[in-house]
């Protein structure tokens, strides 16, 4: 087997192998170190011999034995009390064959632990990318645009907190599950949105992060089938991500939805997304935010072009969202949809009224949306000012170039 193929197995199996190991040895760091040793053993053995039929089981077994060795070595020169604690641990580590349901539970335990609400949101994201997705510390550091050492320290502190603060390695009880699941989904969506429109930097999109988010949601949908919010989020991300190839030029410039070549959209991914939206909407319960957002994305995906999009229904769905999960982003999107139904003047009224209430303070996309509405109303001078404000408000180069383009067009028109 080629080293690249072995690397791929490691990448695919890290999360699940680690999830089971943490339960077996009762410690994050010990499990991680032991798994690294097992990877090293595999790199030595697999290229020349047959790869085991179940690589994950092999890795877990080897890692478990490495962990037990390590504990034994420690016990031999440690105090009696440590010995007592670890006897129980060794017993737990010697386990018979397990069914796949138990292993699925391990993966869920790992996800819920990494997304524990006692961690700051960015720590939840970092832990999830590192342990559940199996990204290296360097890769996680790149995702956060911080250096590897700083990220390493952040991860060490987080794992320390798991151990010292007694964060349980458990799937939450039924009455807490809904709330905790929302937290997990928020983490996944945070990973996706950073991949879909980066906060800053040269590149508009970071498809690696978007792919990780989709992979996580797929996993969650398989582990917790029949949850509307999970299906809704997966559908939402698939439908957005399906437009990726159409969203920028080869030179890295933004192509807005109205100008996108829809033949570039990933039809297979759209089909999968549409099917999931249907499933999510058919499950019983009240309107759920991710499912409604996915339904909006589905209307865009189905439309033959920008103008023949069902804007009326989209505006209506944003009104549902404003009821169930109001936010400045939803307000702005609602106004943009209204501009397609009732015209830009009505949308501008909505935004100005909202701004007067202070509902959009410090929201960086506000001037850009205003600028577009003013441009369409032919109010060139006001539009120009708004584009300048929009440029000052963003750190993302492709957005700056988009606004510069719009400003140049305004100069030509006036």
């Amino acid at each position, binding site marked *: 087997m080629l080293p690249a193929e072995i690397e791929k197995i490691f990448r695919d199996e890290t999360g699940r192998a680690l999830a089971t190991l943490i339960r077996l040895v009762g*410690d994050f*760091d*010990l499990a991680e*170190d032991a798994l690294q040793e097992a990877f090293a053993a595999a790199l030595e053995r697999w290229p020349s011999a047959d790869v085991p039929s179940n690589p994950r089981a092999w890795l877990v077994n080897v890692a478990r034995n490495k*962990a037990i060795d*390590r*504990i034994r*070595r*420690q*016990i031999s020169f*440690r*105090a009696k*009390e*440590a010995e007592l*604690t*670890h006897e129980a641990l060794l017993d737990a580590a010697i386990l018979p064959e397990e069914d796949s349901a138990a292993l699925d539970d391990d993966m869920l335990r790992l996800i819920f632990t990494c997304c*524990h609400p*006692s961690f700051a949101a960015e720590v939840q994201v970092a832990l999830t990318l590192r342990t559940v997705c199996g990204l290296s510390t360097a890769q996680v550091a790149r995702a956060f645009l911080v250096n590897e050492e700083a990220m390493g320290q952040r991860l060490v502190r987080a794992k320390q907190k798991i*151990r*010292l*603060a*007694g*964060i*349980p390695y*458990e799937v*939450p009880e039924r009455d*807490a599950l809904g709330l905790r699941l929302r937290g997990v989904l928020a983490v996944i969506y945070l990973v996706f949105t950073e991949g879909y429109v980066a906060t800053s930097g040269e590149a508009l999109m970071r498809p690696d992060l978007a792919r990780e988010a989709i992979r996580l949601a797929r996993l969650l949908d398989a582990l917790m089938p029949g949850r509307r919010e999970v299906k809704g989020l997966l559908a939402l991300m698939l439908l957005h991500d399906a437009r990726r190839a159409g969203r920028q030029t080869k030179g890295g410039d933004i192509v807005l939805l109205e100008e996108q070549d829809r033949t570039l959209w990933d039809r297979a991914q759209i089909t999968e997304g549409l099917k999931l939206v249907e499933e999510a909407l058919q499950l019983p319960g009240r309107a759920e935010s991710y499912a409604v957002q996915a339904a909006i994305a589905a209307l865009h995906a189905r439309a033959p072009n920008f103008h023949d999009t069902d804007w009326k229904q989209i505006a209506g769905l944003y009104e549902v969202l404003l009821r169930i999960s109001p936010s400045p982003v939803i307000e702005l999107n609602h106004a943009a949809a209204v501009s397609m139904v009732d015209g830009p003047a009505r949308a501008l009224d909505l935004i100005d009224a909202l701004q007067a209430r202070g509902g959009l303070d410090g929201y960086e996309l506000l001037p850009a949306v205003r600028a577009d509405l003013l441009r369409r109303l032919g109010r060139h001078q006001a539009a120009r000012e708004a584009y300048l404000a929009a440029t000052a408000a963003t750190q993302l180069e492709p957005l700056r170039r988009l606004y510069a383009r719009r400003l140049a067009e305004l100069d030509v028109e006036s």
Partner: protein
Amino acid sequence: MQYLLMIYRSEAELFKMNDAERQKMTADYGTFTQSIIQSGHFKAGDGLQPSTTATTVRVREGKVLTTDGPFAETREQLGGYYLVEAKDLDAAIAIAARIPGAKNGSVEVRPIMIYSPELVQARSGRP
């Protein structure tokens, strides 16, 4: 595990309370304390006199220095604590959320250090 639940609240708000509100708060704390004694979580707990009664002590170059008041000026002040036994952080958070003061102030949940360096080291998996 044991956790210290530290209750912070605004003393300014507290001083504005009328008698009926004060009585209600005292009764609420009584009910809560009884409930965690009965459930076996309670190890210790007390209310504190206001931060205006505090003295902060430092020793610098062998000299004892005292200052009037708490260490830091903040919007919320430490007003009391509970020491509880809980199986994990989720259980401790659930108890903290039931403390009457959590509704208008905040509760900091801190695990108590297990003072056995060997155990901590062994568990971290490092020699």
